[in-house]
């Protein structure tokens, strides 16, 4: 007489491992699939051009423009920003405008440019935290 095989009972821990793995896979796929710009966008005052990104060649051109050049010189190289950040006044009596662009080749990194009046004051990169 053949022995009837007992149904194999899984250890509850294995369900946890399987569930965790599936969850991690889902999170990874979501992250890989979502290439849209991420914060700095939560600091934006207004979105100007939601499709705007800064390409490597434009970035290189921009970095060759000396600080204290005119805003027009910068604007001639880079198109409209993704968004404007709130105006700030760091120096007494000199309001500063800030514009932000996600990098086309690394959308998690943002390029922030600061103008004071018609003067291009400087730039920096905001990395995803």
């Amino acid at each position, binding site marked *: 007489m053949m022995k009837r095989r007992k149904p194999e009972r899984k250890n509850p821990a294995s369900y946890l491992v399987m569930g965790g793995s599936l969850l991690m896979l889902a999170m990874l796929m979501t992250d890989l699939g979502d290439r849209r710009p991420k914060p700095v966008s939560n600091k934006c005052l207004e979105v100007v051009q939601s499709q705007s990104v800064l390409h490597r060649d434009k970035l290189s051109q921009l970095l060759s423009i000396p600080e204290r050049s005119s805003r027009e010189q910068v604007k001639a190289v880079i198109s409209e920003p993704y968004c404007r950040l709130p105006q700030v006044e760091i120096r*007494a009596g000199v309001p500063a405008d*800030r514009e932000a662009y996600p990098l086309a080749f690394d959308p998690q990194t943002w390029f*922030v440019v600061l103008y004071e009046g018609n003067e291009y004051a400087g730039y920096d990169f905001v990395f995803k935290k």
Partner: protein
Amino acid sequence: MWGAISVGKVCYTACANALRIALLIPLTACGIAQEPPTARSVPIHQTWQIQPGSAIAGHRVLAGLGDISIDLAGQRVYAPFDGQMQPTAGNCVVFSSPEVPAYLLRLCGLRRPSLGSVQEGQALGRGEVLHFATLRKQTDGRWALVEPSSALLTRLLRSP
């Protein structure tokens, strides 16, 4: 930063910028989000002899021309933006933020200041008297002391 003056400086800064761009992808890909709070050298544009940290007749200078001294009375100061706190000369700290390119804030007189990455509104430290300076980047890479706005000081002093 860029040499509007000499060719040598243009080359140097152009190379530095190229390196910076080249580093962008590997840095973010590796998930390196925080810089360690290394000491930061801040070359000052104004060539005044007496700077915070100088010593005169055995006494340490706590502030110089261009600093604003505020009676904190033991209260805290707060990060005006997301940024970085780094120690610098004169027992001071430097606050920098990529959200406000071309500026640095120098704070002297804080006890046990927070170092490294800080969030907007986070307490940076407390003290009896804060000696505060706003520095704006010059085209030669040095930093000029400029007059801070009262709006900036308010962000620094007001609890969020």
